[in-house]
């Protein structure tokens, strides 16, 4: 693993304690290595339909997941692999779902855009922009009503700040003081369009916070420690009953929007400068500066590589779903019968 910022000034040491640091690193690498492989497999034709990768945005997923309680709720988008992995969902069923196999996380019914694992608190990946913000608010309301102390964390993109559901959810969450943290991953683009071209303010989330009586919070979304700190504060605040937060994490997707999109609409130097700020090597340098050995980190990488390979082998070997599942689980009786 080479460090993209080596040429620049030496990294300051990581501030978080060692165990947490290694865990944040591990999660980011799990995301990165699984997605990198998934992209190759998309081009091989094994991953079908579509994928939306979060390569480059791993620090947001890892930083938040690391600050959550096991029973907290994650709501994310079609660009949700990272968040699903970060909650501890195993890789094999994720890959199998991307392949459309019977052993997939959703039995092959949902696909890449809808990864969900309720037992891990991964409450779904939603593919209609904005829809999950009100849903996350609802989970938070439920936690509030049940006095369970749970918090809902809801991730979405910069482009999502311009749709109506965003506005409704933010207002209602603020009025209800619901324990929900809204996290805008501002990766600068809404599909192929620069967010600035379609947004009336410079910071699509932060500049809207005051419209809901909230503080504007911006964080370097490529700095996993900074994300973790902001996440901890917001989650604690929500859990304490002090209401929602809206956080804008500045980040970048290294690749295109989805599928085979090469992302050519972006200036080369912009891409290069963000890649130079890749969150993973940056954090690796900090860990090393704090005394973690390269060997320890390499061992983590290797273990993850092995996990990815094993997951891939398992997913490849898995059967396609059979016709008998086509009409199951439409209703709670397990079937699809709408008549007698």
């Amino acid at each position, binding site marked *: 693993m080479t460090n993209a910022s080596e040429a620049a000034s030496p990294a300051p040491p990581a501030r978080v304690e060692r165990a947490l640091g290694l865990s944040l690193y591990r999660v980011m690498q799990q995301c990165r290595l699984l997605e990198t492989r998934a992209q190759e497999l998309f081009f091989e034709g094994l991953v079908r339909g579509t994928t939306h990768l979060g390569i480059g945005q791993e620090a947001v997923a890892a930083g938040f997941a690391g600050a959550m309680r096991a029973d907290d709720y994650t709501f994310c988008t079609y660009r949700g692999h990272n968040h699903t992995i970060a909650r501890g969902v195993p890789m094999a069923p994720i890959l199998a779902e991307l392949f459309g196999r019977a052993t997939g996380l959703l039995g092959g019914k949902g696909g890449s855009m809808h990864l969900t694992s309720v037992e891990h608190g991964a409450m779904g990946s939603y593919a209609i922009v904005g829809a999950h913000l*009100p849903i996350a608010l609802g989970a*938070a*309301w439920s936690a509030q009503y049940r006095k369970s102390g749970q918090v809902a964390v809801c991730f979405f993109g910069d482009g999502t700040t311009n749709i109506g*559901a965003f506005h409704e959810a933010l207002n*209602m969450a603020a009025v*209800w003081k619901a324990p929900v943290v809204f996290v805008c991953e501002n990766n600068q683009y809404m599909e192929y369009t620069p967010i600035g071209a379609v947004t009336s303010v410079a910071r699509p989330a932060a500049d809207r916070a005051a419209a809901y009586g909230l503080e504007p919070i911006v964080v370097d979304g490529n700095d996993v420690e900074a994300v973790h700190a902001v996440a901890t504060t917001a989650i604690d605040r929500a859990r304490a009953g002090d209401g929602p937060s809206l956080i804008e994490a500045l980040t970048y997707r290294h690749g295109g929007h989805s599928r085979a999109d090469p992302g050519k609409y972006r200036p080369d130097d912009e891409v290069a400068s963000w890649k130079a700020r890749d969150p993973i090597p940056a954090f690796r340098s900090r860990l090393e500066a704090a005394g973690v050995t390269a060997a320890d980190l390499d061992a983590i990488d290797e273990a993850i590589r092995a996990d990815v390979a094993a997951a891939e082998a398992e997913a490849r070997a898995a059967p396609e779903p059979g016709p008998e599942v086509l009409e199951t*689980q439409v*209703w709670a009786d397990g079937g*699809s019968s709408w008549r*007698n």
Partner: protein
Amino acid sequence: MAEMTYRGAIAAAIAQEMDRDPSVVLIGEDIGAAGGVFKLTEGLFDRFGPERVRDTPISEQAIVGAVMGAAMTGLRPIGELMFSDFFAVTWDMVVNQIAKTRYMTDGQVALPLVLRTANGAGLRFGAQHSQSIENWAMAIPGLKVVAPSNPADMHGLLAAAIRDPDPVIVCEHKALFALKGEVPDGEHVTPLGEAAIVRAGGDATIVALAAMVPRAVEAAAALAAEHGIDAEVIDLRTLIPLDAQAILRSVAKTSRLFTVEENPRVGGWGAEIVSLVAEEGFYSLDAPIVRITTPHIPLPSASVLEDLAIPTVERIVSTVKRTLDEAK
């Protein structure tokens, strides 16, 4: 048995279920302190308090989204949409999120929720406040759809909808709010998916729903009295699950089928009933199947025009009479 209005049956059923199950909560616009613009939730706020009966901003997407999020995390929420026309504002939440999530997650997510709404015409509210949208909901896999025609069913079916493990759309007909009727004492729950034969007859089957049921019954009486035609009237009560067997059994006996619906001409629920019988009951039929519907128009506000648009007793009588005459 207590006499109750259709309106009163709504609050009574909700109260019954809230008493029984602390996970039942209710949200909507003006439903709390104000008791709802149609006074459908009167008394609930005082009885169950602001945590369980919660006023919302005008944010239908947030209301329905929140209901979904609450349902997937342990509550049995009821959301009110003041008018069924407003489903259009939050249609994504209903059809893309609520209806599909159980299937998409292969059963991981359960959504025991109810969306209640004032549906239908008759109050001269015009095109944006008078629609019957039960056919929109019926066409979406994953939703159940209920549309009661009287106080007892309103009570029983709403209670069943609240207990149901699936998302249920409950259409409360505006023109029936003041209708009075007997409601059984004690815990009254009516299973979803069972049609009611509200009048037995051998000459023709008339399938109706909600506010069209009393009209169909009146038409059947007139057909018998004036034309010697003995019609069977079926109140579907729930569109999904659909009591297809009740319809097929009836047509097997009568050989003639009519549907009476408030939906505009094209694509109403009547078309589904017709299609079912045209396939599975075809050999029983000895006359064309005729749908009696609103014309394919938005609803007008003027009283005379609205009255002309919605199927009337006279239109039902004359349609059945003419069809049977021509079939002879």
